[in-house]
């Protein structure tokens, strides 16, 4: 990047009103949308600071902050002058927030005067009470105008703050909210570590931080982030700078440390944390499998849930005494092996006909297959074999000879999931750099070129399907053993899409990304039926998943923790442009010509 020239700050009242009203209007629409979709009302039950602030209000407050920030951002073009952020931008934020507040003002007035609760379920006195905090219409309207203007201003002033201050403010706020969100988990963990007194100190009796502890937590978080500033980055850089035996040594130390924490922690944790982590683990398994199919091989498989179903159903049929047609009642391990084989066959059977289709057709056809499999399991046709809509119940837990894990023992289930997740991570990691993995990535980048290079694309893609199916069948088997039953409705298309969101938010083709994605999404928001830390979200988490998917595709298609290769691929244009700029600066005319020729070649 070349330097951005800074012009002096613009005059305070020289505002771009069109920009302000545009962002203000979008802000207003978003606020009304969020209110009417029922988010504040639902999340109001979850307290962040007791009794001052609930998550419901947070779900509205961040909107003006964000739009204030966005409206006052200057687009920095290379080589162009940008005015220094100053009071003018702060005012821009204030006006944007103020404009945005009119959405809620109109909503409050509307709800006070009209009654359209008939189609809109959230319209009406409860929401009105919430928005006006029960203090009457006038107070509510003025309150929102003031609050929204202030929050817009706060968002805009993030530009003005020095990096250090910005860091302190953002880490204090985010730290406070995350500590409050983690309440249930921390509460559960504290019992194992005999730290109940700390929990009693931080959290109020009915949930949420107390006023005092909120301040303390904010200060501690800010302090930690200031003290740790740069250190983590430096340590990481140092680690990657190491070579040879030193690096190996540190890798082993890091690995052992992580392993020790992961193995020891559940012993102290109660049922809540363990079952939460088990959920995360099951979705991690699924996401790792889909990561191979979508992330590495670039095949968009929307019927991935079919393999999950195959794994689940075959385990249930083989182990449950209640299976209606064929009940050999074998143990979990042989059943798992059989389901893996069956899932592999299913992968071949579904993969073989569709593999030659182009990406988007393949996506819809696999989606069709996923639905067909669910509809078949549900129908009267296969009822004598798989129990129809009533499913198969009474699936026993896991017997490993020396120990038995029943589905109701969260700790045991966690270790089971952990073992399989570790195995899946190992498989994905080894496959990624293997000959097969490299051929997947080549196919993802350009199928025709890959074929010309001598890769058997059909076989490689089929292998991706099969490996993905096998990992999904692990997850299916474990889930069935854990829940103790299997129903066709656990395998809706919804599941496929949630796994897709996990992979995409984490980062396609990146194993650390997928791990982070499943912890953040499944852990906090929850899976299709499994509650996460914020169980108040209920169905609304699906709304957030949809919005996240669109947002990630628009703004950051490589995901939160991208794999280097994938992000280069996605930003190829910018990459080439950068190269062109560099060539312009450093080399003479001839180099420039070749660089620009390359750029043209790629864009064609």
């Amino acid at each position, binding site marked *: 990047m070349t330097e951005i020239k800074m012009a002096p700050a613009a005059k305070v009242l020289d505002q771009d009103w069109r920009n302000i009203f545009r962002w203000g209007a979008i802000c207003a629409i978003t606020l009304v949308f969020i209110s009417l979709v029922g988010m504040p009302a639902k999340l109001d039950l979850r307290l962040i600071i007791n009794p001052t602030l609930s998550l419901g209000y947070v779900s509205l407050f961040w909107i003006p902050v964000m739009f204030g920030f966005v409206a006052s951002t200057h687009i920095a073009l290379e080589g162009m002058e940008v005015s220094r952020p100053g009071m003018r931008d702060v005012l821009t934020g204030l006006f944007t927030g103020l404009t945005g507040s009119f959405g809620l003002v109109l909503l409050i007035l509307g709800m006070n005067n009209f009654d359209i609760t008939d189609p809109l379920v959230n319209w009406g006195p409860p929401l009105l009470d919430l928005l006006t905090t029960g203090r009457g219409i006038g107070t509510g309207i003025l309150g929102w105008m003031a609050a929204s203007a202030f929050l817009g201003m706060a968002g805009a002033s993030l530009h003005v703050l020095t990096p250090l201050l910005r860091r302190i403010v953002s880490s204090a706020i985010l730290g406070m909210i995350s500590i409050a969100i983690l309440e249930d988990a921390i509460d559960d963990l504290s019992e194992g570590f005999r730290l109940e007194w700390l929990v009693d100190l931080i959290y109020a009796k009915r949930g949420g931080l107390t006023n005092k502890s909120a301040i303390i937590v904010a200060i501690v978080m800010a302090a930690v982030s200031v003290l740790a500033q740069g250190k983590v980055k430096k340590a990481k850089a140092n680690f990657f700078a190491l070579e040879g035996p030193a690096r190996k040594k540190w890798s082993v130390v890091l690995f052992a440390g992580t392993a020790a924490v992961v193995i020891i922690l559940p012993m102290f944790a109660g049922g809540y944390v363990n079952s939460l982590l088990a959920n995360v683990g099951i979705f991690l398994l699924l996401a790792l499998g889909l990561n191979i199919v979508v992330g590495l091989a670039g095949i968009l498989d929307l019927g991935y849930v079919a393999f999950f179903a195959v794994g689940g159903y075959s385990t249930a049929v083989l182990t449950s005494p209640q299976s209606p047609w064929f009940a050999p009642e074998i143990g979990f391990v042989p059943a798992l092996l059989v389901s893996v084989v069956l899932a592999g066959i299913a992968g071949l059977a579904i993969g073989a006909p569709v593999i030659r289709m182009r990406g988007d057709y393949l996506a819809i056809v696999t989606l069709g297959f996923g639905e067909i499999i669910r509809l078949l399991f549900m129908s009267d046709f296969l009822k004598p074999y798989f129990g129809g809509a009533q499913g198969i119940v009474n699936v026993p837990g896991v017997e490993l000879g020396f120990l038995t894990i029943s589905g109701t023992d969260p700790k045991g289930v966690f270790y089971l999931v952990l073992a399989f997740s570790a195995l899946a991570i190992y498989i994905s990691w080894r496959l990624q750099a293997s000959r097969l993995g490299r051929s997947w990535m080549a196919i993802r980048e350009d199928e025709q070129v890959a074929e010309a290079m001598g890769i058997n694309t059909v076989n490689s893609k089929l292998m991706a399907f099969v490996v993905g199916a096998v990992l999904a069948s692990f997850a299916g088997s474990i889930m069935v053993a854990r829940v103790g039953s299997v129903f066709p409705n656990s395998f809706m298309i919804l599941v496929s899409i949630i796994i897709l969101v996990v992979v995409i938010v984490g980062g396609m083709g990146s194993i650390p990304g997928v791990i982070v994605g499943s912890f953040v999404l499944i852990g906090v928001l929850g899976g299709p039926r499994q509650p996460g830390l914020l169980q108040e979200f209920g169905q609304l988490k*699906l*709304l957030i998943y949809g919005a996240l998917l669109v947002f990630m595709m*628009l703004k950051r298609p490589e995901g939160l923790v991208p794999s280097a290769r994938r992000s280069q691929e996605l930003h190829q244009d910018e990459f080439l442009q950068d190269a062109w700029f560099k060539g312009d600066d450093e080399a003479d005319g001839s180099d420039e010509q070749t660089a620009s020729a390359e750029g043209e070649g790629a864009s064609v």
Partner: protein
Amino acid sequence: MVIKTLLVSLVVIGVVAFIAQQIDPSNAFAQWRNPGARALTADQFKGLVISGLSQGVLYGLIALGYSMVYGVLGFINFAHGEVFMVSVYTGYIASHKFAANGMWESNFLLCLVIVLVLATTVATATAILMERIAYRPLRNSPRLIPLITSIGVSFFLQNAVLGFFGPSTRSYPQLPEWLSKQYSIITFEISGTKLMVLAVTMVSMAGLWYLVERTKTGKAMRAVAEDKEIASLMGINVNRIIVTTFGVGGAMAGVAGIMFGLLFRAVHPMTGFLPGIKAFTAAVVGGIGNLGGAMTGGIALGSAESIAPMMILEPLGVPGVTQLKDAVAFTVLVMVLLFKPSGLFGEQLSSEDRP
């Protein structure tokens, strides 16, 4: 290969068994898989055809949106089914307001026109907004990225509607007597609603045909579908044409939504999912990008979905065949893509555009 043979032989055996059953239910071949075989009466058969037809034209109307967007932008707008769902909801809200003040009974036709216009407008606006917010920034990205985005949009819209209106199934108000009554046309017993669905569909198809083939906008649309860059060199505003395409597709889905609402009289947030997928299937069956093909594909799919369970699956001795209606539609999709990916009326596509 194995799958192809298997599918074809199943279909052939089913049809043969069906014919055997029609000739004589006590025939050994008909009794082979399905001991309770009974010949379908002509009336039953006609009923199946009519219900297949009236559903098929709805699939066709929705499929037009898929086909047009695919023709112009080359990507599958997965969220198109949700545009349809939004229209069904709009129709529900409007018709309930009319039913509440009594206008629905007293002046049904006027109400219907208003509801139709309203729902079409809302559906068009949804489609255009969708294009503006989610798809336009991705115009030049790799093929799968807009598809994934459209899955996100679809998921978002479903759950937003669920949040706004609650998860319960809402039902349309009672229809007037002359619509719910049966009419007999050339020995076919057909209800007034289905007649209306057929008529409205024909009118909208004619309107679309006129727009695409006889107006300047339509010419521009065809030009953009052919080659965006050249079209823009010829002075066509490509962005505007793309927006128009989304809008027209949305309007067609809007009309289909109201017809669906009158036909089935029930709506819930997931209403758009299955018709959306089936309409895509219809578009593929007819050859994607081909408007007449989309309608034909819709009719073919609707009929297959309604007839195949009785004609192929029942003679094969499958119990509870009506539950497998949706599975039939998906099987049709898979089979078309396996045997004739360019569809019934599709052109021979270049390797770049081949499925």
